[in-house]
């Protein structure tokens, strides 16, 4: 028996999303969930640009995009939403233009600012899910805190050299970023070696995590850090543990009662 077409999916959208609608455990119901969903992408560099690009292509209803600063020549090996003709102009405008060209049906909220302690909660409140692609751990930890407080899932993706990692945080069900590092690592440097093909790989995988979580199918990386080394093409799933004294997500976990004496 044919599925009922949800009233909000138009014939044009059926054409555009036809190939992903054929995914048996996604289908029209999954597409409708994506259409009604909203995602915050923090920074639109090598990672976030690809995440946003794939989410726009897949038909996520609303993207809130946060990225400050102007396009620099050194962005262009990996930041595929930025173009040569936009060097010296705001990154967020280049990203918005490229995403609107790809899928004009997606509502885009462009924020010419990076995430920090003062705006994280307000940005997170606008969406159903957050994707963390920022270069600074101060930003990442601020967004983690806001997302955990709001009980919103976070897809954490990262890269270095030819390596990358990916995990999904569901507050109260999985460890959060602060479980892995409660404070910014002092040995981390904001600029680091990487190829655009590495950021593109993990960015697309992060987008797939988002789609699975929003549409409710597949098996997201919950409590699991996927690490990938593209030099040797080795992928490993590694279990991560929550920190019982985590100040961010600890209060969400049921406390263990001492047995009666």
């Amino acid at each position, binding site marked *: 028996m044919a599925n009922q077409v949800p009233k909000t999916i138009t014939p044009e959208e059926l054409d555009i999303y036809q190939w992903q609608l054929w995914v048996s455990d996604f289908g029209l119901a999954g597409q409708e969930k994506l259409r009604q969903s909203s995602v915050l992408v923090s920074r639109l560099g090598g990672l976030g640009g690809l995440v946003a690009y794939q989410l726009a292509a897949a038909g996520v209803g609303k993207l809130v995009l946060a990225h400050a600063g102007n396009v620099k020549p050194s962005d262009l090996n990996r930041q595929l939403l930025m173009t040569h003709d936009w060097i010296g102009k705001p990154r967020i405008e280049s990203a918005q233009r490229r995403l609107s060209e790809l899928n004009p049906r997606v509502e885009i909220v462009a924020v010419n600012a990076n995430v920090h302690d003062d705006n994280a909660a307000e940005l997170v409140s606008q969406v159903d899910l957050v994707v963390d692609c920022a270069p600074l751990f101060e930003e990442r930890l601020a967004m983690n805190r806001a997302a955990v407080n709001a009980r919103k899932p976070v897809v954490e993706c990262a890269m270095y050299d030819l390596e990358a990692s990916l995990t999904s945080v569901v507050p109260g069900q999985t460890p959060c970023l602060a479980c892995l590092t409660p404070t*910014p690592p002092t040995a981390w440097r904001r600029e680091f070696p990487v190829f655009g093909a590495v950021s593109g790989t993990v960015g697309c995988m992060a987008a797939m995590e988002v789609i699975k979580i929003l549409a409710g199918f597949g098996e997201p990386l919950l409590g699991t850090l996927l690490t990938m080394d593209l030099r040797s093409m080795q992928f490993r799933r590694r*279990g991560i543990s929550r920190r019982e004294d985590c100040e961010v997500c600890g209060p969400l976990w049921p406390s263990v009662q001492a047995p009666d004496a």
Partner: protein
Amino acid sequence: MQIEIEYGTQVRVASGVTREKIETPEGSTAAELLARLLTAHDGALAPWITADGQPRPGLLVFINDQSPASLQNALLRHGDHVALMTLVSGG
């Protein structure tokens, strides 16, 4: 006993190796192994490991692909695979 060490991201670059095998006394803990690695690599891992084998913020340690709750209490066994890598980010 012999432990296989895997290095990733920043600690791979700092150590100059991707994998190596290390001999440790029977009954060694993961913290004791980290202190041994700090010495074996002439302090190159000092940004991520303290002298008493504790991880500094940002170092991830996995024993047989699972992060232990405590490195001091994590007893190692012959043939264990220990992976060290740092948290990295976007850009």
